[in-house]
């Protein structure tokens, strides 16, 4: 409804009940679900007024330009993968940045769960054990969890390593962007 106006009452005017009701109804109707941007002062929305977990990607503008005084952090999560098996599907991790702190032997990751369009993943193996990303491994029974290393072969670190992957919705595979270490 946006901005509302009321009937001006001058000295000596006698309003009918209907006129009074209309005056109130106009204001009540506006307040009951029709307040919009025009009714809000600039800066009216402050942090406490935004419900948690309500800002989705669609609420961001077409171009997200972080100023050169801003920084972005993906807080570190941990994964219980202990490794040591011939192949392991990476699961039970969360967020963007995951630490594979429990790997106790050389490990092959044949697949990664949780893939969805464009999901970006940073993995950190702090252990001295080699970590292999298997290329298109049939050992991973869920095909959409498989990894494309972009070399046609498995990619293996020498001991500790870091890696970045992104999920392709077209290929329905994780794409290994980088394996460092």
């Amino acid at each position, binding site marked *: *409804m946006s901005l509302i106006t009321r009937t001006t009452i001058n000295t000596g005017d006698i309003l009918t*009940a*209907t006129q*009074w*009701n209309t005056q*109130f*109804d106009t*204001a009540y109707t506006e*307040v*009951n*679900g029709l*307040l*919009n*941007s025009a*009714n*809000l002062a*600039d*800066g*009216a*929305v*402050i*942090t406490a007024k*935004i419900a948690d*977990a309500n*800002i*989705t*990607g669609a609420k961001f503008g*077409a*171009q*997200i*330009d*972080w*100023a*050169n*005084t*801003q*920084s*972005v*952090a*993906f*807080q*570190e999560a*941990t994964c219980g993968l202990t490794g040591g098996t011939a192949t392991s599907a990476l699961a039970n991790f969360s967020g*963007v*940045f995951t*630490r594979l702190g429990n790997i106790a032997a050389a490990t092959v990751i044949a697949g990664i769960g949780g893939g*969805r*369009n464009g999901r970006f993943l*940073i993995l*950190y193996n*702090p252990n001295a054990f080699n970590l292999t990303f298997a290329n298109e491994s049939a050992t991973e029974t869920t095909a959409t969890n498989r990894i494309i290393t972009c070399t046609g072969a498995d990619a293996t*670190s*020498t*001991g500790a390593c*870091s*890696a*970045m992957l992104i999920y392709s919705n077209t290929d329905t595979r994780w794409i290994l962007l*980088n394996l*460092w*270490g």
Partner: protein
Amino acid sequence: MGVIVKPNIFTTGQLPSGPQWDTNFQTLYDCINGNISASNLLSASCTTSKFVDGIITAGKLTTDIDFSNTQEFCFQEASSVEINTGHTIANAGQSWNRADASYVPHSNATRGATNNRNGYLLFFRLIGTWGGSDIVMANNSAGFDTPILTMAGDFTTTVGATTMSGIMIASNVDGKWVLLSARNDIS
């Protein structure tokens, strides 16, 4: 408070009492004065200018942030980063840091970096004359509060390299930077 209901409806010929007026107005005023909630607002009523800058914190974001394939994501370039006399990458207060063209490094050996808060993603590009020597990023250098784990030995550029570029992320568990990628140029 949500949706409000007018307490008194007047009928033809009725002379409203003072309390009836007061109640009708008070209900309205009470709603406006701090009790406006989602049910009072039209959908999409909170446009950009209505938001105070800096109010979107991590807790306000959904668990999964899916940017569409038409949205762009940029880290604007800062140019304050340097390798200080303590051999530490410093002044990196943002995500994409480039040493400016006039930058002269204090040292060609990098042993740590400041501002290593949990999960801080740092893109860096160090530029310098380097005195014709190679550039070294030391692995887990002892004696530094915030060393860099290169995932191997010291990362050394080609002799004569003028830049070192890469990405690192801060591990809160280790209290160290984890190098994700690095390369050098001779240009």
